[in-house]
């Protein structure tokens, strides 16, 4: 799905990573690891095309990778703060030509523990707690149902239950032949999931 070959990037002269090679095939999970400041988030941004200035090649299996790729980052839930959870999901799904009925949305949100007050009163997302926002972002990831997930610290702020739920979603996704590139410092997520690690920070 994704081939990264000989990728080199650095701010200034010092490279953050050098000659990086890896590829993601269906059903495979790649963990990007490294100490804080190693360049993991930068790597994800570069793969997505949100940052440029690298050398080396990044090749996606298909023409417009945005059709089948989803992205989440720690400070980027992509939520409109004044709108409700449902309004947010609807917008992002419609942009991907997914006409999910409100019932399905509500069910999914219920599964993520976003129910009662938050839905019915139409509480704007800005009033959600840290973990609820992240849950909403992951609900979107689940509903978008893309082939490739590029996820940067997905577990941030989640409680035990939500972590487990997400882990299950990741496993289902892999089983269905999806690919994942994940950055996480939290070993809980990867316990018992076969994965390859790309290590940054030695450069």
């Amino acid at each position, binding site marked *: 799905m994704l081939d990264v070959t000989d990728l080199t990037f650095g701010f200034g002269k010092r490279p953050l990573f050098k000659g990086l090679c890896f590829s993601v095939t*269906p059903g495979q999970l790649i963990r990007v690891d490294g100490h804080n400041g190693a360049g993991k988030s930068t790597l994800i941004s570069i793969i*997505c*095309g*949100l*940052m*440029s200035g690298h050398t080396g090649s990044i090749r996606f299996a298909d023409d*417009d990778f*945005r*059709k*089948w*790729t*989803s*992205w989440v*980052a720690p*400070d*980027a*839930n*992509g*939520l*409109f*703060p*004044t*709108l409700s959870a449902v*309004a947010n999901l609807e*917008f*992002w799904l*419609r*942009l*991907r*030509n*997914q006409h999910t009925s409100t019932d399905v949305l509500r069910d999914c949100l219920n599964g993520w523990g976003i129910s009662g007050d938050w839905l019915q009163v139409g509480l*704007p997302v800005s009033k959600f707690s840290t973990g609820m926002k992240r849950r909403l972002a992951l609900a979107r990831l689940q509903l978008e*149902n*893309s*082939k490739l997930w590029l996820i940067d610290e997905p577990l941030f702020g989640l409680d035990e239950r939500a972590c487990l739920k997400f882990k299950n979603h990741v496993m289902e*996704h892999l089983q*269905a*032949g*999806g690919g994942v590139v994940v950055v996480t410092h939290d070993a809980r997520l990867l316990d018992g999931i076969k994965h390859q690690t790309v290590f940054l920070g030695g450069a």
Partner: protein
Amino acid sequence: MALNHPERKISWFDTVATLLRQSLRVDLSYPERLITPLFFAAIVLLLFSFAIPEQDPSIQPRMVIAQTQLAIFFALQLTFSRAFESERSDRVFEHLRLAPIDASAFTMGKILHVLVIGSLTMICTSVLSTILQGQDLAVITDPIFVGASILALVGLAGLGVLLAAITLRADGQAILFPLLYFPLSVPVLLSSTEALAAWMERRVWTDSMRSWSTILIAFDAIYLTLAVLLSPESE
């Protein structure tokens, strides 16, 4: 799982419509955002009335137009600088860049959004301004005034979206925006003002009017084209 992704992309027009709808939805979720530019215009006019001394009656009508234009301009500036506010929060903009939509559709949606709220601001401000200056509403229903205003609005909207998109990811967007916006808006403002002034003086279609309107239209075209062409694509 839809791994063989059925068409996960919507048509250009649908995209524009969806984006426009969402922008308006955000505006409505916080309607103060729409009202404030009007308040602001009222206060700008009030300041003018304090600061600017009594005028010769002969230039009074020109003064009315001038003050109306300035008030509109300040109000629009406020409107535009907020047009990208929701995209900046929580990195919605990056998410939009990674959604399967055309950059030009995004820009077009934003331009339409800005035009919608801009026209609202403009209409209300003009009415307010003529009333507050004790003028007849006929002044602002003059087709030439309306035409010049619309052309100016289009130019300003194109420019605003262009710059907002460019500076969106720069630190301190709030500051960069006026820094570029004001100088670049001068041609549009200047030509619309001058075209209008020429009209007000003679009430006939003169050469000077023609040349100023040509400039106005040229700048509209330039800014609009640039905005759509230089849409913030994936880098």
